[in-house]
């Protein structure tokens, strides 16, 4: 059997719900894929869309963004602001032709260790099926090709 592609996935999660939910998956010894590593933020409201862009630029194949369920935000409303930002950001990416299926958005509470594990496995599987994210890399190559092509034809 050929070696299967193992994607690199970065999870941007809030400290109070999803991070705690991921800890709960740990204390419950729920097993899940090793492909996802967490970066902890105080709140989903803190997650800058630029960080998502930088993650893709630096070689992430997929991203998980997760925080408290609506109404459950430790800071009252950070997740509501984040939700609006994601709605807009996602539609911008889609309009630019970016494959938004590479980003999983979710709400995982501190009590949902099993949901977290499932989410990681499901996302890993989906990204595995999609393969490595190369759109950005191809982009740079094609620029150089175009430039050199232009240079030659001139």
């Amino acid at each position, binding site marked *: 059997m050929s070696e299967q592609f193992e994607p690199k996935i970065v999870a941007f999660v809030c400290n109070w719900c999803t991070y705690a939910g991921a*800890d709960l998956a740990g204390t419950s010894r729920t097993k899940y894929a*090793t492909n996802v590593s967490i970066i902890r933020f*105080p709140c989903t409201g803190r997650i800058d869309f630029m*960080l998502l862009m930088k993650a893709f630029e630096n070689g992430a194949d997929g991203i998980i963004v997760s925080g408290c369920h609506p109404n459950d935000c*430790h*800071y*009252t*409303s950070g997740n509501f602001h984040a939700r609006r930002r994601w709605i807009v950001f996602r539609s911008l990416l889609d309009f630019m032709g970016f494959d938004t299926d590479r980003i999983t958005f979710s709400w995982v509470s501190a009590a949902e260790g099993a949901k977290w*594990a499932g989410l990681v496995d499901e996302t890993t599987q989906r990204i595995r099926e999609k393969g490595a994210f190369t759109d950005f890399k191809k982009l740079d190559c094609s620029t150089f090709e175009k430039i050199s092509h232009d240079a030659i034809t001139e």
Partner: protein
Amino acid sequence: MARIGVFICHCGENISATVDVAKVAEKAGKLSGVAYSVDYKYMCSDPGQTLIIDAIKEHKLTGIVVASCSPRMHEGTFRKAAEKAGINPYFCEMANIREQVSWVHPKSDATTQKALDIVRTMVEKVKKNTALTPIKVPITKTALVIGGGIAGIQAALDIANAGHSVIMVEKKPSIGGHMSQLSETFPTLDCSQCILTPRMVEVAQHPNITLYTYAEVEKVTGFVGNFEVTIRMKAKSVDHSKCTGCGTCWQKCPSKKIPDEFNEGMGFRTAIYSPFPQAVPNKPVIDRDHCNYFQKGKCGVCQKICPAGAIDYEVQDEFLDVKVGAIITATGFDLKHADFFPEYGYGQFKDVIDGMMFERLASASGPTAGEIRRPSDGKIPEKIVFVACAGSRDKAKGIEYCSKICCMYTAKHAMLYKHKKHDGDAYVFYMDIRAAGKDYDEFVRRAIEEDDVHYIRGRVSRIYEKNGKLIVKGVDTLMNGDPVEIEADMVVLATAVIANQDAETVAQRMHISYNKHHFFAEAHPKLRPVETNTAGIMLAGACQGAKDIPETVSQASASASKAIGLFSSNEMTREPIVAVVNRQAPPNFTSCTGCMLCMEVCPYHAIEREEMKDRTGNLIKVAVKVNAGLCQGCGTCVAMCRNKSIDLQGFSNDQMLSEVMALLNS
């Protein structure tokens, strides 16, 4: 130049069983900026901490990364160690390689690699850390206790007796909660009201306690030590400062057929009422939904006859703003009611009742004056079947948990029945008998051995009526799984303990977490069982999970001690995880353009307008600043700010971007 120390913990075998810790330590040692790297069996132990402290001193480390458990576990421990070694505690970061690596992945190269990735990420973060100083905030030494059941009563008395002010809010017309409805209490069979009523009176008379009944918490803002709470005082329609509690009004009220909640609908009350004779305060309120005056616009009897002139139909709900330093949530529980058990005919057959109804039947102050009679025809039942675990521990019903109190109260119910009807038959269907408290098992044995209650281990599949009897079909798993059919006169279902209907709303108002069954979540299931994740908000009683009275009282005292501890100093220190607006040399002062769009996103109103003026007082620039006392560090403003003029200490742009880059570039 950064000199970072990396400390990899084995956590006994918790980490080292699946992660090659030696390899992680070795590879981490080669990372740029890492001056020292080591692995050790227990970093959090005394020798472990000493190892860290010595290494910081010996290798002149500027920052450390401890790769071990979740920062929720030991961040404080290691920050203190860093401080002891003479560096700013905020130069310590933790790499969570236990909860998020070793416990969730099998032993493999990928697991070790992930641990290393996380270590590298945190090394890059700590390089960007800055020295931070904790923030001091004053404390309002008043506690708010939400709920006036036994949990709230105990907590309020403890705090008040320690010399602090307490505000108690109870949504019903009287305090007392479910405990006031109980007949006798296990395992001693002493009368519930006899032990509770003195406590209720003490609350009402305590100089440090302000009691608001018929009131609810509407809004909570602020933070530990400095909460601002809005209380809705529901219109009682009776001026309690004038009312003497003489009772003339409820004797004369013409609306007499309102199902009595206190008696679980098995008796009637009037529209102007005090819920029970020992109520505190023992002064009535008008239930406007059932009052002729409010519904039909005519009546007014109570106003005419009130000798004190206390009836006021015009009064409206009022709102009261209070400042408190700590909040104790003691909002209690509810029982699963009808419709939940179509197979048991609960809600369909009058003589299939729940445990709380049985308490009222058995209570001397209840609708039958303590005689156990069938609700349908008032006859004394010859045979009663008690069904434990009605709904609890039943995945198909969506409730996996054990309601904890049913085994004991069912034994008590069977005993009470047998004590009153000596020749009656009592059957108990049970799954397991969980009688783990002090004197509890002895109590159950007494029911079985002395009072001759028939215990059948098995579940009931169906209850139906035939020829005036309730046919209870079940199974006896200790008799080869034989089907059992009992013709009973009455069935008592020990229905599941559930969270209050409005628990979710309450939690959302307080910004505390709750589990999927809407029981409030404690900060740590073992080590912080009475605090919530929101600092300054504590839990007491069954709002956190099913509990009996002794356990509820213990937890209430525990949360009271947390509040008292908080009130023992005049100010407290807070994590300096707050947002700051950058500063630049004049004439810029800051890169903030003063668009003020961030002001609206701040849930704490911590962002304020700031005017920059020259020496002569001319306005040069308008920008914003963050009030560090109010800021709670969510960082929503940071992600909102277009030109990154606001940053969050501890989770700065530089730190977060470094983490992303480090995680992905091995």
